[in-house]
């Protein structure tokens, strides 16, 4: 047997796998590092396209300018406010919908009606324009509630939570009832404490979703001063992008605008991503279990 030969080709194969994996990692990482590097480089270097993944003519000037940008911080504040309001409302509604729905039909009469309402809302929707008109007719335009209320019931999270509650051993509930606990107490004292990982998963869904959403801000806010952060950043970059796409390269562009704003915009993008980077360890921990466990039911 040519064991020697076999182990050599196996070795080459192994190396190739490592090379591909490292390559994919770098391809994902480098464009992100590029933006960070641009945010830390001088306008001149950015305009000359000299910035790779290491800042050129290192400067904190873009971040200093950012500190003095009132609209950025106003939008940042709106986004933070919105994330907390959405999170609170979502969690309350998810828990109080998922718990009764996790009961059997015999324990909760009317369950199937509610369940069908929920599932149909997942499968079909009125679409962009009717939803917009409902929000407008309720007088919510230009209020923070237009960013919070339309997504108050995250159907997917309710179903995920319901499936989790169903997996909780019945004996726990029975023991609590024998001790005289009301249904509310059973939920709060028995179910919630053992559901913390699942609750974390749906909470993170909510946080990421509302922080990243720019579209609600775009259609429900008619005044720029009311924009949440992602809508604000989007409104800044879209004009420049359209110029670039129409064939003007960024050198012409910065001449056109007198000065390169690209490093300032990059700084805005970096700062707007910091909250997500901060909770990223949690995201990795809870999203993965949520995705693997909750994506399909048997």
């Amino acid at each position, binding site marked *: 047997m040519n064991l020697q030969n076999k182990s050599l080709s*196996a070795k080459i194969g192994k190396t190739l*796998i490592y090379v*591909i*994996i490292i390559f994919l990692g770098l*391809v*994902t990482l480098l*464009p*992100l590092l*590029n*933006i960070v590097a641009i945010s830390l480089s001088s306008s001149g270097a950015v305009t000359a*396209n000299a910035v790779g993944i290491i800042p050129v003519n290192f400067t904190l000037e873009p971040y200093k300018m950012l500190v003095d940008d009132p609209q950025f911080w106003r939008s940042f504040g709106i986004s933070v406010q919105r994330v907390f309001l959405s999170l609170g409302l979502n969690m*309350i*509604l998810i828990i*109080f919908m998922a*718990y*009764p*729905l996790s*009961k059997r039909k015999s*324990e*909760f009469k009317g369950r199937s009606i509610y369940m069908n*309402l929920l599932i149909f809302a997942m*499968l079909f*929707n*009125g*679409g*962009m*324009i*009717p939803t917009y*008109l*409902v929000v407008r007719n309720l007088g919510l335009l230009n209020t923070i509630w237009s960013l919070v209320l339309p997504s108050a*019931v995250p159907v997917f999270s309710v179903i995920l939570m319901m499936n989790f509650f169903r997996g909780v051993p019945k004996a726990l509930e029975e023991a609590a009832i024998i001790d005289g606990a*009301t*249904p*509310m107490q059973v939920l709060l004292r028995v179910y919630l404490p053992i559901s913390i990982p699942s609750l974390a998963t749906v909470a993170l869904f909510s946080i*990421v979703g509302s922080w990243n*959403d*720019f*579209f609600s801000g775009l259609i429900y806010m008619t005044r720029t001063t009311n924009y949440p952060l992602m809508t604000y*950043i989007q409104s800044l*970059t*879209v004009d420049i*992008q*359209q110029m*670039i*796409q*129409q064939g003007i*390269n960024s050198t012409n562009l910065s001449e056109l605008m007198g000065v390169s704003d*690209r490093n300032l915009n990059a700084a805005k*993008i970096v700062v*707007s*991503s910091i909250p*997500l980077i901060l909770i*990223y360890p949690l995201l*990795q921990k809870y999203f*993965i279990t949520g*995705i*693997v466990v909750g*994506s*399909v*039911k048997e």
Partner: protein
Amino acid sequence: MKLDYIFKGARIMQQRKRTASKRLTNSNLTYHLMILPGIVFLLIFNYAPMFGLVMAFQDYVPAKGIFNSDFVGFQHFAYMFSLPSIERVFTNTIVIAGGKIIFNTLLAIVFAILLNEIRVRWLKKSVQTIVYLPNFLSWVVLASVVVNMFNLDGSVNHILDNFGVGPFNFLGSNQLFRPLIIGTDVWKSFGFNSIVYLAAITSIDPGLHEAASIDGANWWRRVWHVTLPGMLPIILLLAILNLPNILNGGFDQIYNLYSPVVYQSGDIIDTYVYRVGLMGRDYSFGTAVGLFKSIIGLVLILSANQTAKKFTERQLF
């Protein structure tokens, strides 16, 4: 004496039953009250807009409202099918969404199989940490990253220049825009999509791999005959369940990257409805286009669920 006990027992049983059923009605009431707020929100923000779909059959005038606007039947649908641009919009949507589904699935599977071979723990963990990250970032942020890389004098054109090709105006070319959209979407999500496949691989019985090795199967053969068949149920299931997404081209991504120059190749149903219906205030027509999409989507998702149930004994709902 004995009979007495039995009677007493029966009485106690009856009493217990009564309190139990009383408790049951009580908890039923609590359950209804618990679910009520959520249902109210659902009715206002999900079902009221569905009622608003009536607009698609009206000549909706905001001043008259939905109850007083004139009905026009299927006029908007007829108009929609007479527009040459609508065919383009549907084609773009299907090509872009189809490309995303296919390439996202393929790369995620390949990545999961390769990653599973990595034995250096810190490297595996770091690569996972990196490739899962873009999935959590907004397309607003990533669009800037993409524009930075792909504009006329961005890094990609610099690299291509070293090989003597280019420059390419990726964002402004109708030939390159779709590949760019599909490619950058795969870049954003392949890592995250690989999680499910990785879980499927690790649940394959290692004994099968050992047996194959003893029989002299090399790595390729083991992947082909052990790993892939082991992953097949989950691959099929996700493929079926992804199918209804064929009409979702990805509004956030395209809205942040497209421009009038590439409407021809990059305008999808959602961006079209937004531009013509909402921005152009052609509410009824926009709603008609959206409704058409939603109905096809509903049919697709119901058939996908049936198919999944039939072949894999699992379902989405």
